[in-house]
């Protein structure tokens, strides 16, 4: 890696972020992110979807800085609810509940909050270093990719998201394909044929990603959570700065777990399909396994919050690697970010770093600045978020309904857009009832047109020979990974099926 290139880039990034606008949007993002992360019930996906309209009028760099801020801000805030309420604020801080809440019950909520903030900071900053170190070489490598490589890469990304996420594979695959098809709605650019538009003029330009994301994620969360008026019971209402300071023993116990978590998180974040949730669970398991006394876990072990929080935040940062350097989103949040870039006319891909260095480096530097802001927001200003936790839902949700509607309306000043969102909201609600995950739909919808285009182009290049995908080494390797993934999923399925059958027959024999 060329160090001077990196330092030039960082300088460029500094000049983008250290402007009144840059700092404002960075702060706005992390502030909103923490706010949302703290509230249980509203995830980062819903928030980003709900706030996308406000970024439409911004420069793409600031739009991305804001949305990314929401994402990693939420990863910080999520642990606050985990510790004080015994309810995870976001999915990736679910593990923090296990030892964070017991710590709070022992009167050590301040220490827990402090350690999670520090662990989050270390994880994020180390993840950011990995992001800086890997993005450029990866982009350089990928710049020689042509259509078959892109197709295979996207296929791998989608399969990994569907099969590694831990959900039910057929449901997830069905949702990926459903998303790909939603992405095709509109006029086909190659032939001028309108597809799946059913004569609705609003559909000619394709479905609005905002409407789709807001409908599938935002509305169901409003529907589900708005019935509870009273906020959950808080353990500690007042948290003084003094009570937050960890003892020397706490530091010693938390230090290495933080770094182990960072390593695990950086790795899983960069892989497509895995992210903060898997990384945090994984790092918790590792800590428990290597601990001298595993029985302390679940009863307020400080390692049990330090490592997963570092992992979760490192994963958030390295999750940007495939997105920014290859243009391939690893999960639905990243797909939304790419969608926003595309709406702004920026084409994501390995060229992004070289063609739009101000965007790339501006975003990277904003991560560093945003993380410093987050430490300030989460340690000295923790009292603010404890207050946020006590906002009654019957004030919060009606307000969100109005803000969301105005946001949707303001994009095109068309009331019809609100009805489109409502329609997707009903679909999203139905999907929840039937246990479909909406995240793969978004991923598919963003990748659909790209995949089709590259598939077509590859087959034009090869004169219709499918072997072309295997003959090209990089594409062949990626397809090999796809095959392995599918085989290992089938293997895992068959094994659990056999095991449970053996158990069932053993139980019968015992009777």
């Amino acid at each position, binding site marked *: 890696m060329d160090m001077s290139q990196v330092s030039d880039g960082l300088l460029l990034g500094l000049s983008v972020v250290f402007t009144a606008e840059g700092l404002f949007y960075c702060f706005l993002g992390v502030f909103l992110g923490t706010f949302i992360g703290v509230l249980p019930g509203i995830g980062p996906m819903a928030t980003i979807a709900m706030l996308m309209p406000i970024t439409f009028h911004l420069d793409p760099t600031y739009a991305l800085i804001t949305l990314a801020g929401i994402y990693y801000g939420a990863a910080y805030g999520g642990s606050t609810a985990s510790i004080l309420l015994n309810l995870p604020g976001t999915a990736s801080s679910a593990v923090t509940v296990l030892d964070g809440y017991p710590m709070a019950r022992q009167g050590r909520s301040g220490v827990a909050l402090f350690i999670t903030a520090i662990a989050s900071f270390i994880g994020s900053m180390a993840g950011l270093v990995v992001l800086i170190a890997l993005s450029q070489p990866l982009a350089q490598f990928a710049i020689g990719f042509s259509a078959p490589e892109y197709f295979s890469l996207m296929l791998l990304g989608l399969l990994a998201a569907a099969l590694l996420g831990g959900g039910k594979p057929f449901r997830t695959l069905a949702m990926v394909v459903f998303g790909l098809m939603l992405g095709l709605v509109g006029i086909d650019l190659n032939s001028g044929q309108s597809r799946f538009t059913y004569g609705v003029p609003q559909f000619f330009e394709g479905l609005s990603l905002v409407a789709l994301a807001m409908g599938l994620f935002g509305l169901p969360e409003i529907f589900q959570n708005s019935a509870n008026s009273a906020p959950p019971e808080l353990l500690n209402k007042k948290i003084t700065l003094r009570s937050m300071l960890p003892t020397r023993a706490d530091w010693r116990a938390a230090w290495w777990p933080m770094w182990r978590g960072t390593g695990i998180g950086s790795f899983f974040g960069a892989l497509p399909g895995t992210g903060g949730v898997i990384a945090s669970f994984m790092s918790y398991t590792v800590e428990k396994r290597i601990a001298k006394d595993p029985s302390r876990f679940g009863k307020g072990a400080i390692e049990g919050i330090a490592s997963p929080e570092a992992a979760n935040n490192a994963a958030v940062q390295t999750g940007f690697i495939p997105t920014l350097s290859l243009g391939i989103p690893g999960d639905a949040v990243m797909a939304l970010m790419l969608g926003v870039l595309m709406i702004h006319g920026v084409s994501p891909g390995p060229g992004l770093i070289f063609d739009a260095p101000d965007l790339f480096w501006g975003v990277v530097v904003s991560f560093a600045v945003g993380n410093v802001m987050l430490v300030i927001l989460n340690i000295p200003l923790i009292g603010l978020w404890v207050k946020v936790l006590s906002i009654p839902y019957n004030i919060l949700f009606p307000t969100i309904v109005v803000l969301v509607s105005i946001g949707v309306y303001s994009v095109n000043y068309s009331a019809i857009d609100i009805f489109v969102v409502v329609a997707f909201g009903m679909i999203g609600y139905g999907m929840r009832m039937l246990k479909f995950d909406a995240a793969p739909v978004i991923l598919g919808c963003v990748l659909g047109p790209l995949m089709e285009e590259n598939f077509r182009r590859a087959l*034009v290049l090869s004169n219709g020979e499918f072997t072309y995908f295997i003959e090209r080494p990089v594409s062949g390797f990626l397809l090999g990974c796809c095959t392995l993934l599918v085989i290992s999923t089938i293997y895992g399925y068959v094994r659990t099926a056999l095991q449970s059958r053996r158990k069932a027959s053993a139980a019968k024999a015992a009777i």
Partner: protein
Amino acid sequence: MLKSISRTDLTAGLLVIAVGVVALIEALNYPFGTTRNMGPGYFPIVLSGLLIVFGLGIILFEGRAPVADDDAEAGDKPSRDHIRPLLANLAAFVSLGLLIESFGLFIAAAVAVMLAGLADKRTPLWKTALLAFIVAAASCLIFVYGLRLQIKVFP
């Protein structure tokens, strides 16, 4: 091994198949082209086929998965507790969409808050009314006068 297929999975699978079939019927209208020179119908037809296959997969495999459903199934079933917030919030969104252009933002926002407030039956009406006034006034101030969005405030 003869387990009955859970109703959620059956509905889910049938819906996926239905979407696949509807999409397939539509996609068959588009020129398929050849592999060398694909028409706009190629990709959609392949995807519709996959959707139907995965729908069958949901019914046949996930419907009678050997692993017992660990997540509480009852929690997701629509019940009376879920219907009320659903309808209240839907009414709020729809009313805002219907009212914003003819009656202006202030009235539309206030009505939407009143309706959304019905989601929780324990909230007293005066509280919701007060919130409606505050949210309507604040959103007019912030969005129309502050951010200068081109939205009418009053009828």
